[in-house]
């Protein structure tokens, strides 16, 4: 698997990361290096092995349905650039 400049542009856009046009090619080369390195994993035979999404399987805790948190509006809004009447205020977004 390899990526080209167009794939990088698209990935950057989806991740909302600004990437200059002249950076696309070098980034593609770097990413291809990483991909080639990771592709070595394909050599391992994983036939019949369940995919592991977390090493923490033992800690499959569940919480009881009890309200234990919240009512910290001030803390929640503390880092927001702009707030009004308890709301976050962001540049207008309308679909």
């Amino acid at each position, binding site marked *: 698997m390899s990526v080209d400049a167009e794939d990088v542009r698209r990935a950057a856009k989806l991740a909302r990361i600004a990437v200059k046009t002249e950076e696309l090619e070098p980034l593609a080369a770097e990413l291809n290096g990483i991909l080639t390195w990771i592709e070595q994993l394909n050599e391992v035979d994983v036939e019949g092995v369940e995919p592991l999404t977390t090493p923490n399987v033992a800690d499959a805790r569940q919480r009881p349905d009890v*309200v234990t948190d919240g009512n910290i509006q001030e803390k929640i809004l503390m880092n927001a650039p702009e707030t009004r009447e308890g709301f976050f205020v*962001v540049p207008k977004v309308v679909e």
Partner: protein
Amino acid sequence: MSAALREPEPKYISGAEGEWEVVIGMEVHAQVASEAKLFSGASTSFGAEPNANVSLVDAAMPGMLPVVNAFCVEQAVRTGLGIAARINLRSGFDRKNYFYPDLPQGYQISQFKTPVVGEGEVLVELEPGVARKVGVERIHLEQDAGKSIHDLDPESSFVDLNRSGVALMEIVSKPDMRSAEEAGAYLRKLRTILRYLGTSDGDMEKGNLRADVNVSVRRPGGPLGTRCEIKNVNSIRFVMQAVETEARRQIAILEDGGEIDQETRLFDPRKLETRAMRSKEEAQDYRYFPDPDLPPLVLTEAFVEGIRAGLPELPDAKTARLVAQYGVTDYDASVLAAERASADFFEEAAQGRDGKSVANWIINELFGRLNKEGLDLAASPISTAQIGGVVDLVAKGDISGKIAKDLFEILWTEGGDPAALVEARGMRQVTDEGAIEAAVDAVIAANPEKVEQAKAKPSLAGWFVGQAMKAMGGKANPQALNELVKRKLGVE
């Protein structure tokens, strides 16, 4: 419900150039009736101050870890069992990545690869004996997003994260519906099942039940057409209107030689139109991957069987039992079983009485009146004992059907014991032949010319019945009065 159920007849829409069939699938989001959120301990209560029901997990502060709410898992399984679905003992949570100001994580935690509930089925009765089986593809658990408000300021949007992280069950149907009526009836049935199970309150006004409706059209028997998804429809009536509106839009395009673009649309109930919602420039790419913060959701057979053992009687079973046990019609049974509370009300009132009469009084008089006044059954001023009392008085012949309605009115406005009211207000019907005869004789004596006419035209007997009834203040036993009038006039 009767054993033999038919599929509905095909219902086509006539275009300018022949007939079209509409094909509908639905994704219903039902808010789980939990106290706390899916992955945090913040409250789910409605109407709180903005950003009050938010924990640091819901606000996606760095380092916060989600821990799943056991009750929410249980409700998803319960809902699955309520539609006879397969339960996946091993499922997982995935991240659905997109950016929007009311989604602080930058992704929604959902179940993409393996949902907790697999295939099931909802039987949607359209009329007595006619039902559509609608397949359910899956039910998965996911987080709700926050709420953006766009109309408080011309330059800014306001964001409230109170809903952020609230547990939703997304119930995905197969494209098995074929008309707006079926779509509406499916959503209604689903809501009934959720309420029976108690897994969601199904309150559409609060946004606790919303539907994304997939609509396409095709020539009868032809291949499936391209579908459009109508997002976030929040009432049963709007679902039906949206289907109708969108189907007509697509038919007009196709008959003009155009093509349908697969896209997401919004329904505007005021203008009765749908319009494209998202730019199609870049197709949605959610880059799903397993959430590394959450271990797989592993359930035991015993856990699932425990829930199954505690399931209540479900709407279809209840409808069938009401028919079998009380002799009510299929239609009445399904009206009564539409809400657990109305079925319970009926069963309490029907103890030791004729089920059909009790069903009649509840559906026609009580529900009719509650509806007119915009009241819930819970707010009914009339109790099961009072309804039962009215039915008993009619059954014993103490009051006529017409007087019973007057009695119902008194019970509604003033309350009281039906039998005592009948005594106290002299409403008991007169069955004493002598008294009725006297009244009939008086009418006959006063109207000799009508008596002559009635001999030629027996239907005039009704006029005499009316006059005599009026003279007796409506309290004559109607049957006895009828027979007496006919005998006296010598008509049949």
